């Protein structure tokens, strides 16, 4: 059985990047970017999550099947969010009381 030995250096540098990104989040929160406040914060959060999943949870070295299952989790969360939003974003559509005119 082959096991990938991840050098400690990798963990340390990923950890450093995570801390740096946290610092960035805090720093950015002090600047008002208007519309982009949320987008920037979420982008950083997603990058951090991907780093944790890839390196600390070893999905990067995992088999294709494991990657598929890890991806499925996110895909299913996307189903939840997209279809729920499809309700919220379309609440004003199809004005009843006009279609028969």
């Amino acid at each position, binding site marked *: 059985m082959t096991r990938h030995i991840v050098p400690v250096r990798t963990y340390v540098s990923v950890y450093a990047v995570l801390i740096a990104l946290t610092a960035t989040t805090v720093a950015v929160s002090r600047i008002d970017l208007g519309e982009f406040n949320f987008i920037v914060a979420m982008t950083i959060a997603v990058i951090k999550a991907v780093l944790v999943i890839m390196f600390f949870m070893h999905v990067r070295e995992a088999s294709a*099947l494991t990657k598929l299952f890890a991806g*499925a989790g996110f895909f299913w969360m996307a189903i939840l969010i997209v*279809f*729920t939003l*499809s*309700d919220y974003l379309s*609440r004003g*559509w*199809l004005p009843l009381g006009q279609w028969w005119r």
Partner: protein
Amino acid sequence: MSTIFEQPRVEAPANYLNVDYGWKSWLFTTDHKRIALLYLFSITAFFMVGGAFAVAMRINLASPRGVFSADTYNKLFTMHGIIMVFFFLVPSIPAVLGNFLIPIMIGARDLAFPRINLLSWYIYIVGGIFALWAAFDGGVDTGWTFYAPYSTTYSNTHVILTAMGVFVAGFSSILTGLNFIVTIHKMRAPGMTWMRLPLFVWAHYATALIQVLGTPVIAITLVLLALERILHAGIFDPAVGGDPILFQHLFWFYSHPAVYIMILPGMGVMSELVTCFSRKGIFGYSFVAFSSIAIAVVGFFVWGHHLFVAGQSMYAGTVFSLLSFIVAVPSAIKVFNWTATMYRGSISFDTPMLYAFGFIGLFTIGGLTGLILATMALDVHLTDTYFVIAHFHYVMVGGMVMAYLGGIHFWFPKITGRMYPELWAKFAALVVFVGFNLTFFPQFLLGYLGMPRRYYSYPEEFQVLHVMSSAGASILGVGYVIPLIYLAWAWRKGPRAPQNPWDAKGLEWEKAPSPPPTFNFDTLPIVTEPAYNYSGEPEKEEPLAGEQRGDRHA
């Protein structure tokens, strides 16, 4: 099968039951077969508790003005729903028959994670204790759906305690699903390719996917519900800026697929019963196998059909309605394929097959009335009426419980090493079928006429139908008690079962003794033929089998 000679008195060979009798050997066992029995006894207990609540409801509804108070009745239907859904239906076939059979069917000695398997039973029991504690300490009255804002703001019953019970039991379900997925991927015997797996295993694989992908959402939803109740977090309660419809979205994201957690394993049982008692291979193996996966996936895209009149947008309602029609297709494929399997088969009418016939008829009625409810305009009329109640009881009781009883009878000789009394079993199957239809068919009519669900009283003109339903429920109750008695008797006193009393195909019948030894097989089996090879013909090269060949690399 039965012999006219006295059974010679010989010591039974060592099996998983007689290997040790001490209580520790049960409570600390990691044998999937013993854990299956732990589940069998515990879910039977929960079924009786949930059934007792149903009996109380049907007594109340025999008279238009009710017997109990409105508050009591609210608690009765809530506890009936919660116990039956989360503590009986969800674990029933997977945790009992799946646990017992999957390793044997694929030629393995146990599940991939035997200790996690035991842990999942303990978690289930802890969740069950929470729910029972809530039930007997005043109860809960939100309905099994826990809808906000009633559950978050107004109910003064044990909402959080009950939700805790469901939350905890959810982890048991996740662990069982995880265990099945890994086992089916990693522990198949040599020669047991994906396309040779019994369809029971395919159905459980699909079920396990839903358990793993869906259950976390109900867990987090119930946590949010508790946060809303305790801290007024403003997620679901409109008074503090929340949205009660969001609760319905999150709740049904799990709870609609959970319907398939409850029915898919039953469909898996059906494929085994229909092939065995028709003496034929399944018609369209890959269609039946992949329709399970299709149900698992598409089942996640339809939950909005529960929100048609809740304030969901017209656009979302239309999309969810169309998708709900699509999810009926794979279920229909299964029904057609079982029917085609029976066509020109040499059918025998043993008890498990009687339940299989019941399943096909009742599940078809349950499924087709689901399409009526998925039609938006009709649903406006039928939402929250007894039509809905009748619909899902046809699926859950007429489908799942029938399959469960059929499966219990079919594998009873394997599980216990004994035969049950066939005449009593046939009689009970008939009583169950008659009682079931008398209970629930009138509810279709009641719902169509406008009787709303969850009401403790009703106008006089509904009484005839309600009394019919209550009368049916008492017959159905008898139909459930009879098997309990003769199966308990047969377990101790029934005639010894041979290894393969049905002359069935499958490793559990052909390679494992009845009951199996602790590690299932004396020598590990090698699989050389497709599933359900009742005709004994050599394997036809299915187009998909080629793709699967490469997946067992070292």
